[in-house]
Every structure is written in structure tokens, then in C-alpha cells.
């Protein structure tokens, strides 16, 4: 069940409540799920293992994004849903494709495979 959840969730845009402001909802991409080792960009630790029951989320526009690099891993209980389609404006109708940018892949996957850096 854990493997199924990882492949389902990873690299999807998730729509969750901000841990710093509970009234605000934020939308970011899931970069890592629990157990992954992530190389962070601007977080207090250079490398981090995502704790159990948490996700590592990042905005696609690095450097201008208020995401896990600022507030750390996000608890799964804060996730509200998964963004699957853009429905407005009509000229941007599309299915949001799941993909992790090549330079943001986790260093070590749950099944022990290492990624080329």
C-alpha cells in the first residue's frame, strides 16, 4: 500500500493548507514522499530524509516559491487534494502532467535505488 501511494502521489501537484497560515491554501509539486532523501535548496539542512507521514513540496519557480525549502516537510494531514486539470482561463485548459524536474529527483528512493545526480 505504501508503494502504491508513493507512485500515485509523487510528482503530482498537491493542493494543501499552508503550515504557516492555516487560512491559506497553497499549491505545489510533490518532490518527495516519506523515506526519500532530498537535496534541499535553501533549507537549514543540506540533505534531509522526509519523515514518516510527511511530504516535501516545492514550487516550480525555484527562488520565488514559499515551499518546503522555507518551512520544511509538510504533514500529509494538511493535503487537501490533488490538482489534476486547469479549467480557467479557457485558453489554458490542460491536464496537469505528473513530472519531477530531473535536477529535483530524490537521491535515494524507497526501494533503495540511487539516482544519478
Amino acid at each position, binding site marked *: 500500500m505504501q508503494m502504491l501511494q508513493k507512485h500515485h502521489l509523487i510528482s503530482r501537484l498537491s493542493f494543501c493548507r499552508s503550515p504557516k*497560515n*492555516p*487560512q491559506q491554501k497553497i499549491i505545489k509539486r510533490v518532490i518527495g514522499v516519506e523515506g526519500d532523501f532530498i537535496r534541499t535548496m535553501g533549507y537549514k539542512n543540506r540533505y534531509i530524509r522526509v*519523515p*514518516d*507521514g510527511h511530504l516535501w513540496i516545492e514550487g516550480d519557480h525555484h527562488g520565488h516559491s514559499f515551499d518546503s525549502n522555507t518551512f520544511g516537510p509538510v504533514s500529509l*494531514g*494538511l*493535503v487537501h487534494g490533488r490538482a489534476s486539470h486547469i479549467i480557467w482561463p479557457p485558453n489554458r485548459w490542460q491536464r496537469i502532467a505528473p513530472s519531477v524536474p530531473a535536477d529535483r529527483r530524490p537521491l535515494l528512493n524507497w526501494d533503495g535505488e540511487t539516482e544519478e545526480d
Partner: protein
Amino acid sequence: MFRGFAVKALCFVGYTVQYGCIAHCAFEYIGEFVSCSGPSMEPTITNHDVVFSEKISRHLYQIQKGDIVIAKSHFDPKMNICKRVIGLEGDKICTSGPSDIFKTHTFVPRGHVWLEGDNLRNSTDSRSYGPIPYALIRGRVCLKLWPPQCFGGLPDSPNDGRIL
């Protein structure tokens, strides 16, 4: 005869959907019944107690210090925890034990709350995993329903001095 039966069945389905939606909205936005297990809130709430937790103050951001809340577990979103709010965002929390010589303090970050069980000796709470985001709170426990001899409101924290 068959048509009369089909109309009755359709009406029944219609009423079920209507009442199901109302029940869902009530459980989502007004309150729910919770059966508690575990020793972390003794003597206020013991094993197998049933309480009613209201969600209105959570949605209106009116949770206060000293409230008992039901929250989603930090590590497993399918599990729920029942603890007392000791500090809101910006509050100062004493993290050292009562027998420590040097007192240490921490401040609760923005958007987070500090939870502790009433049974300080047998409770894993914010003292071990840190403050939790406010949005993980599901509701505030306001009424104890079972056992019947303890029916009514809940007492204040038995631990003096934890809430500054």
C-alpha cells in the same frame, strides 16, 4: 403495481441521498462523536470514553489555550490524537522538566499550536514531536457523553503552571 414500487424505491433513494448530504455536512462542519482510547489524557478522559467534539470554533479560528482538541496525527494522517492546547502561536512554552535546574523555553511558531496530554508521564505530545500546524486540528471537545456518570463538561487542566 411494479411502477408504484419503482416510484417508492426512487423516493426512498432520494430521501437517503438528501439525509446523507445533511448528515455529512453536520459531521464535517458542526461536530462529531469521538470514542477515545489510550491513557494520555487521564484523569480528564479515560479509555473508552465517548465525547462530542464541535468543529465550529475550529473553522472560526476560536480555539483557545486550555481547550481539549482532536487533531490528525502528525505522522499518520489516518490516526487522530486527543490532547489539550497548552500554547498558541507566539506563546512561550517551558520545555524543561519540573526537576531540571536550568529552565529552557521555546516559542510556538506562526500557524502552529503546542499540545500536551493531561497525563504528563504517559503521553507522547508536542514535548516529543514539537508544535503541530493549526490546520491539523479537527475539532474542540466540549461534552463528555460516556460513561453516563461523568456526563457533562470537561474539567480544566490538572497540571498547574503548564499554561502560561
